[in-house]
């Protein structure tokens, strides 16, 4: 009698089951799609393009104060206020103003030279006051403002968020699923069938690749539409990089969950592994700020490798040859952790 139900190979059935399970898990959908979008939106607005704020400066009351105030009010970059002496000193000390203009006949600039905007406030104020006093400019310079796509903070941020998201979902989807299945004795039930153990683990990678590509597409499209962050490199290279990077983290996730008996244990381990990378791997700010001695270590962390390569592709239009080193190292991370994880895996 022919069978009525078409049964696909176990690896396909496992991957399908895993995909359906994930689709039906609302919380997981939020962490994969909702969370990074909200984060990108919030950070994008916090660092949106806008003219720099006017720098507050204080004009200390005195005989020349009214003229000085009037002159300074014409400046586009300064925000002058008239203050009495005590008030002015307090304001400077507390950083409410960056510069004080005082003195009766001689103009005195009082400021803290280590504050970056204090010096520009001093120069701008000096220009304005000199001009008001009758100075003529000898040169007539022309200004050209640059506003290059690819050099804004949001251009830096979006690839970093993609990398961070690939790390989070890659590790959690493996770690949580495995620990959960082990706790509920589902793993034990599965090894009581003729199922091949490698089929189970590989199917998790298969179902992951579908999600991973959707996840990256959503973030890229969002960055493009909302913030104009364009992928300057090839989409295919970006897809290859996302899959290799995503698998590296799935491998690390598998290793992390290979023996843990509870969700709590896995969560702790995952956070322990991810925390240093959130901080050091250049998600929100460049790791160039770290001391030179630790940079070589930071560079080989999987998230750093992924973020560097993502930025190279998204911002600098790098092709496969330029990111081959990062790709190769990410593949090593993925394969080595997968092999060790498989070797020490606890099925019950």
């Amino acid at each position, binding site marked *: 009698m022919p*069978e*009525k*139900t078409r*049964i*696909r*190979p*176990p690896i*396909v*059935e*496992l991957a399908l*089951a895993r995909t*359906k*399970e994930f689709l*039906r*898990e609302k919380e997981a959908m939020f962490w994969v799609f909702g969370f990074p979008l909200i984060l990108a939106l919030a950070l994008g607005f916090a660092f949106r393009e806008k003219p720099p704020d006017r720098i507050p400066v204080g004009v200390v009351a005195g005989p020349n104060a009214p003229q000085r105030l009037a002159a300074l009010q014409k400046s586009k970059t300064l925000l002058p206020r008239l203050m009495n002496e005590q008030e002015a000193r307090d304001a400077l000390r507390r950083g409410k103003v960056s510069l004080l203009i005082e003195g009766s006949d001689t103009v005195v600039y009082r400021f803290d030279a280590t504050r970056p905007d204090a010096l520009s406030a001093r120069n701008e104020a000096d220009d304005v006051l000199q001009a008001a006093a009758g100075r003529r400019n000898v040169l007539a310079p022309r200004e050209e403002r640059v506003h290059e796509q690819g050099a804004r903070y949001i251009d830096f941020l979006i690839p970093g968020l993609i990398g961070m998201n690939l790390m989070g979902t890659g590790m959690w989807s493996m770690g949580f699923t495995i620990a959960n*299945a082990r706790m*509920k*004795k*589902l793993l*034990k*039930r*599965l*090894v*009581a*069938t*003729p*199922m091949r153990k490698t089929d189970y683990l590989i199917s998790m990678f298969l179902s992951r690749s579908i999600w991973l590509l959707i996840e990256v597409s959503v973030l890229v499209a969002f960055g493009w539409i909302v913030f104009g962050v364009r992928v300057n490199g090839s989409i295919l290279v970006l897809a290859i990089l996302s899959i290799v990077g995503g698998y590296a983290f799935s491998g690390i996730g598998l290793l992390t969950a290979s023996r843990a008996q509870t969700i709590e244990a896995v969560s702790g381990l995952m956070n322990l592994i991810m925390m240093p990378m959130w901080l050091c791997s250049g998600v929100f700010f460049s790791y160039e700020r770290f001391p030179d001695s630790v940079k070589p270590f930071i560079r080989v962390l999987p998230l750093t490798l992924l973020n560097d390569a993502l930025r190279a592709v998204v911002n600098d239009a790098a092709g496969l040859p330029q990111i081959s080193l990062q790709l190769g190292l990410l593949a090593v991370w993925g394969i080595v952790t997968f092999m060790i994880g498989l070797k020490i895996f606890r099925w*019950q």
Partner: protein
Amino acid sequence: MPDVIACRNLRKYYADVKAVDGLDLSVASGECFGLLGPNGAGKTTTIEILEGLTESDSGEVEILGLTWRKNERELRERIGISLQETQLTEKLTVFETLRLFRSFYRVGADPEDLLRDLSLDEKHDARVGKLSGGQRQRLAVACALVGNPDVLFLDEPTTGLDPQSRLQLWDIVQRFRQKGGTVLLTTHYMEEAQRLCDRVAIVDHGHLIALGTPAELIAKLQARNVIEFTSEPRLEQAVVEAIDGCAGVTAHREGWLLRVHSLAEAVPLLINTVEKQGAKLVTLSTHEATLEDLFVSLTGRELRDA
């Protein structure tokens, strides 16, 4: 014909307990064999060693003439297992779960047919998370049957189920046997062992303490009935044992369990004895002897609170 399941001198010691302590078992083809005992008797450890899921410290196991060491894959194709507590993926439907399990076997039953046989077809598209306890358990057994196994291992298949679900499950087991299947199950329900099993092994603390058909085992009591009574004040054990026709006495709560052959003879004698002692009868009830009474007579403890 060789035994379908055979083990010799099985031992499994954990740090704090001897879970299985020198167990010999053999189950013939087509037989339904019950491992009966209280919680912690070593039933689950035993069945999991037989299922090839736990390694024993020593002893030999042969299933269908094969060993786990040499023929694991072949054996996995030919046996079906229901573990004591498996939570199948809640987000999958009943049918999806069964189709997934079917894909692991080279040959097997059609999931649709199996769901109908197990009265789960109404729940075909229901999520596993929404099933009742009885339905979940039937799905677990369906997953064990989907590879058309020769041998079925069931670890406490009806624990925690309502009477209706329990009957349904017994029915499934009996139909599997009618097709020639061999069953090994563990239970701490005497009634289940009596109703389902051809032979029962009673285990306690990892030891076999009695083996035979349910009828043979009950016959070992040499008493068909049990009287359960309490009196005020309580009688001395020697006084109760001295009653004519008494085959055994065990303390039970504030009173005694008295095993007798004939209720008609023993009850009047008991009432007489109580009166003669100047005591007052508080409660008295009787029942037919069961495997439970055998366990009580063998261990002095009851199954449920042992």
